[in-house]
């Protein structure tokens, strides 16, 4: 059902967005490729009420990491990333696949994405990313409903390769 198939444009029920792969969410509950960044939220290892908002910009690969209350991450140096950012990179590769993350970040070719990303520290909007994470979480608060959604026939659950 890939877009290489003849007549793909004339089909109604095709997969357009590639599926994300299952991964452990405990350490990095949120990862996204959006707003020109790989960005996400990393849970603190020591304080369950604290999270770090980490991001890496496409092209420049400049990075930032701070708590959701805008305190800079102590592990961050001017030219080197903290463990939160490295965890973010690893989990993004698990979720989206190396190729898609590297393409989005314009990272060039290679198997080790961490070493391909050589930016420096920048200030990035942590509050905006954190609120996107909260928005993400609110989906789980929407109550289930028995109203039939005919529209979902355009979105078949398609098998992953097992």
């Amino acid at each position, binding site marked *: *059902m890939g*877009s290489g198939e003849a*007549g*793909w*444009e*004339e*089909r*109604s*029920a*095709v*997969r*357009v*967005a590639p*599926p*994300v*792969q*299952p*991964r*452990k*969410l*405990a350490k990095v*509950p949120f990862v996204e490729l*959006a*707003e*020109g960044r790989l960005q996400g939220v990393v*849970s603190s290892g020591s304080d*369950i*009420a604290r*999270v770090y908002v980490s991001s890496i910009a496409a092209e420049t690969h400049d990075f930032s990491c701070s708590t*959701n209350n805008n305190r800079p991450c102590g592990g961050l140096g001017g030219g080197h990333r903290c463990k939160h950012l490295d965890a973010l990179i690893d989990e993004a590769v698990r*979720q989206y696949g190396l190729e898609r993350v590297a393409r989005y970040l314009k990272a060039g070719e290679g198997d080790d994405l961490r070493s391909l990303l050589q930016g420096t520290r920048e200030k990035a909007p942590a509050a905006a990313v954190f609120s996107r*994470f*909260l*928005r*993400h*979480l*609110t*989906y*789980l*608060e*929407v*109550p*289930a*409903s*028995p*109203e*039939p*959604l*005919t*529209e*979902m*026939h*355009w*979105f*078949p*659950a*398609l*098998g*992953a390769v*097992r």
Partner: protein
Amino acid sequence: MQAVQLAELTGRVPPGVGEALKVVAGFDAALADGLARLGPRHTEALGALAGAVGGSPLGAAPAEASGRLATGSIGAAELSAVAAARAALLGAVHDALLDRLDGALGRSRPGWEEPPGDPGPVPANLLAAGRSWLQELAIAGWRGVDDALVSAADRALDALWAEPRLRRLAVLADGLAAELRASCPVATMERIPERRWADLWTRAVLLSHGGSWTGGATAVSGRLLPLGVDVHEHGTAVQVQLHAVLEPAGEGPVRLVRVAVAVAKVDTIVGPLVWKLLSAYPTLLAALAERRAVEVTGMSLTSGGDLLWDEERAAAGAPADPFATARVRLAGAQAPAVAPLDRHPVRIAEPVLVEGYKAGNDGTFDLGGERLAVDSDRLPPSGPLTPQLVKASTACIGLLRWDAGRWTLQPLAVRSAVKRQPVEAHNGDWALGPTDPKVAKAQARSGDAVAVLSERAGRLLRN
């Protein structure tokens, strides 16, 4: 299903279908380039679309709207009129295909009767916000969609999700927005899913007028015998739709009905985990996992054949083998009418039992010399069916579907021989958790995503 029935179904295309789809394709190409950039070819396509429905109750409205669109007046009224025309044309294609299917299978289906029931008022400002985004999309065209245009929908989407009466539009628009976001900038895409995105846009425009059209329902009681489960899923929603036979408690025909339950989710909740999100429906899930009948008492059934699930009105019944139900009850069951605005070929999903075939290497079942293509992409990761099981199968409960000129069978359950031992696999088998130890172990290894995110939500959302 017999070979002769299959031959009649797939033999020749109903008259008019090809012509109608050509007109639709013309409109879809115009929408891909954007209605602000209509070339002569596109203007002609809009005229053809309006002309095709000129004799319908829509009358002259689409023609007038096409004329105004051609002069650059791209307002909500014009867009609604052409969306209605496109929907009507695909509705007619749907009707022709379903007639052919009913004729081939000898399936009886009553005509549509407008249900009583009044959906009630819906928040007009939310609908207007949705329409305004759809208008921007139409003006820009798919090729003009960038991150900013997709993000422009965020606030409208949040508001739609918060309003239960507009769930259908929320789910649809969110699914479209996610695909557009993943495809940005669309101008660099090698191929654009023109039919699909125009379908989604059209449907969203219709839903942005009155909200839902699910409508009124009547209370029914009886024994519900499951046939199989169809699973629908995008990043932020999952729907489980059961196809079943209802044996009414009193008078009345045995009927084919559906039960759909849906819930919002996030993209990192995938595979068998989606069942956990539906824990509000324990009786339904147990019936699926344990292959049981359900006794329903006074549950609402819409004119379109959707049983509106209510746990309070459901009780687990005796074990019921879906293959036995399909063999004994399916052929004589009365199929439901289809709500007019729901008519689109994509929703054709008619349960059938297929037996006595040879599964070929080319992904088809050979049924007495007639070939039926099997859609083995459409095996949900939340259930045990695999292409290998389908290929080794000797009997299959599936849904007949139609897309882009081709009938396919979507398997819901198969009976296969594995190492000469008979095994059965049903899409709903894992409704209470995976029964395959390998899958259960993999799930345990990656942890419970639902629990992790719920904990995070509990701690962070209410701070």
